[in-house]
């Protein structure tokens, strides 16, 4: 005889789970009792949202499914932002929630909330398990759904009586999950691949637009091989950073709202856009009608619903990006030279590098550049959301996939710090930095307690400008500098960190930056760096909302 809780914990271990992030409560008591002497590592967070983000950070860094656990009602509701974050960026997590006993379901019982109803639009799928007998199968399906096809979060809601009840249960040798309503297409259509290759050879000015789907399908190597085979320039989305090394000669950097001029000009002038694992998000396309308006479009994506959603596509290829790229590479026989195009692009790159004012002021870009050169492409960089995120995307040189972790789609402030904790458990040998703003850091700052008590060696670099910087930037540029509710009072983050038992250094001048970063890297435990940066620095270049992406402001040679 086994309780539901035991079936759950054993099921998690069978899925290869070693670490889960959670917070206990009334209806998950049977599960926590089972965890008490289980070999599964449980990290107690200080807010359930952090558990969801940590599971997400773990998944992005490792490529495996992350797991979080919360109680019913408020516990489950606190996971919601984390689940939505994972959903928008197609991150595989399984969120387990307790629920009131089945006899009380729908009764407005204490700490009851309809979490399957609440998370319907932000999960790939969810389950309310009403019988202990179903638990083993549901858990298996949940991991399968989360980690295959277009990945995403799956929630499993378990009423207290379901986890308490004992049943005769023997795990049968693992047979593959079959769901008649879920059969993702993995192989690309051969004829479509042929058509795409033809189009590539017909083009004179092609650009590859590489997105996060390449990382999700572990296809970075194939991407670089395809780009190099034909010398096609590559621009990446925010989510695609790291798919091609930052200093690769074919890399144009990021495109879109805060992309490089060379990337945005190249896309605008291109006659063929090869979109790979990307979804034509509005932050990428700007004014849709002007986006790659002279180009034919090839779109490779595992999700058929992304094809033609925002932009009409000439050659759609539905399939796992890695498999499609392998097929393309295998069929690649001819050669083609786009020399004139590459010369133009080189011209843009030389004329319009990313730049900021280099003086004695402590500028955030400088901090990131120095960190980048200290780490030499090693380590995992997590960001919060806002200016800190964009500067990191622009100035940190990413060389490998899964070394850049950020909330792209939902843009969740407070994501970075807990996600960095998760990333540490995925890659315990790597140094993990959270690049934060003072606004974002304070959204999940309570996790200092988690990193302190578990000795999680996450380094937080706060670019402290006492503003909600990105909103302030928009107010400066578009609302006559009326800084409505964007100024924050000064906070001494070193003192805050110390209060939790975490070390930190305050940095106020440029020459203190490198020693401080080194001190953080050399410290075994967690560390907080409080960089008092230039307060009204802006992220440039920038495409104003609704403009075409080649109509950029700022960052131009004076």
């Amino acid at each position, binding site marked *: 005889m086994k309780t539901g809780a035991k079936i759950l914990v054993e099921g998690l271990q069978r899925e290869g789970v070693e670490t889960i992030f959670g917070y206990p409560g009334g209806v998950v008591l049977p599960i926590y009792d089972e965890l008490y002497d289980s070999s599964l590592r449980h990290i107690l967070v200080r807010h359930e949202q952090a558990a969801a983000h940590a599971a997400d950070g773990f998944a992005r860094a490792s490529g495996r499914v992350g797991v979080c656990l919360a109680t019913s009602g408020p516990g489950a509701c606190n996971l919601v932002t984390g689940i939505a974050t994972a959903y928008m960026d197609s991150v595989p997590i399984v969120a387990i929630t307790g629920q009131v006993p089945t006899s009380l379901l729908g009764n407005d019982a204490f700490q009851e909330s309809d979490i399957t109803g609440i998370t*319907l639009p932000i999960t790939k799928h969810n389950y309310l398990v009403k019988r202990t007998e179903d638990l083993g199968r549901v858990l298996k399906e949940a991991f399968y759904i989360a980690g295959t096809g277009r990945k995403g979060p799956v929630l499993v809601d378990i009423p207290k009586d379901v986890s308490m009840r004992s049943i005769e249960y023997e795990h049968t040798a693992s047979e593959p999950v079959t769901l008649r*309503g879920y059969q993702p297409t993995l192989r690309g259509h051969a004829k479509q691949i042929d058509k795409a290759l033809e189009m590539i050879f017909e083009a004179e000015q092609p650009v590859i637009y590489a997105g996060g789907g390449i990382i999700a399908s572990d296809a970075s190597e194939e991407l670089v091989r395809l780009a190099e085979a034909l010398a096609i320039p590559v621009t990446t989305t925010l989510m695609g950073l790291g798919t091609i090394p930052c200093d690769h000669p074919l890399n144009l950097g990021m495109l879109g709202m805060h992309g490089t001029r060379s990337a945005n000009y190249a896309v605008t002038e291109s006659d063929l856009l090869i979109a790979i694992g990307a979804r034509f998000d509005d932050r990428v396309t700007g004014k849709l009608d002007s986006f790659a308006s002279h180009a034919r479009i090839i779109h490779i994506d595992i999700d058929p619903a992304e094809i033609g959603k925002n932009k009409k596509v000439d050659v759609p290829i539905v399939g796992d990006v890695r498999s499609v790229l392998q097929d393309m590479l295998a069929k690649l026989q001819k050669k083609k030279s786009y020399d004139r195009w590459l010369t133009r692009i080189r011209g843009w790159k030389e004329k319009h590098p990313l730049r900021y004012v280099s003086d004695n002021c402590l500028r955030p870009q400088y901090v990131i550049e120095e960190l980048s050169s200290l780490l030499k492409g090693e380590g995992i960089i997590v960001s919060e959301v806002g200016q800190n995120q964009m500067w990191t995307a622009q100035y940190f040189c990413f060389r490998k996939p899964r070394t850049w972790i950020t909330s792209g789609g939902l843009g969740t402030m407070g994501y970075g710090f807990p996600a960095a904790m998760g990333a540490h458990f995925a890659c315990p040998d790597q140094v993990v930095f959270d690049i934060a703003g003072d606004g974002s850091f304070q959204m999940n700052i309570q996790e200092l307690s988690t990193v302190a008590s578990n000795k999680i060696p996450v380094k937080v670099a706060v670019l402290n400008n006492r503003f909600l910087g990105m909103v302030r930037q928009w107010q400066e540029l578009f609302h006559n500098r009326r800084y409505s509710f964007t100024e924050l009072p000064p906070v001494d983050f070193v003192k805050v960190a110390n209060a939790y038992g975490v070390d930190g250094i305050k940095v106020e001048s440029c020459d203190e930056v490198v020693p401080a970063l080194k001190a953080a890297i050399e410290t075994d435990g967690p560390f907080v760096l409080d960089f008092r940066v230039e307060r009204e620095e802006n992220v440039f270049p920038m495409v104003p909302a609704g403009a075409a992406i080649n109509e950029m402001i700022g960052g131009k040679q004076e």
Partner: protein
Amino acid sequence: MKPHTLSVLVENKAGVLSRVTGLFSRRGYNIESLAVGICEEPGMSRITIVCIGDDAGIEQVMKQLNKLIDVIKVSDLTDNERVERELALIKVTAEPGTSRAEVMQLATIFRAQIIDVAAKTIILSITGDTEKIDAFEKLLRQYGVKELVRTGRIAMLRGSKVLKGGK
């Protein structure tokens, strides 16, 4: 923009209907008509949805529906030869004397059935396509329609072609 008739084969599980309808409202589409019931396959249900939208919008809705794990197959019947039916129950004032005779006469013409007779009212049952039921209801108005209940539309392809599972 035109009405599309979608036939959606789903797992017969709790919560499936809210997954399907939630998707329509989330993506900004109104459901004009909805009918759900079991179908020939054990464990599955068929949902027939009539929804107004342009072709690209409907295509997006269908693709999103297909992504739902509990949705087995989605078909747009709009451009196919098909039969469509709705059922309506109409409680109409029909006092003994002239009006009752007239209502019964109309029922005969429309091939509606009288399924309940009371002192002052009768209940008529009519099946047919939307236009036929609309026309019948309009004619009955003058006698006094006390209550009207109408099902959503159901539809099926003509000929031997069938809509089976398998995405």
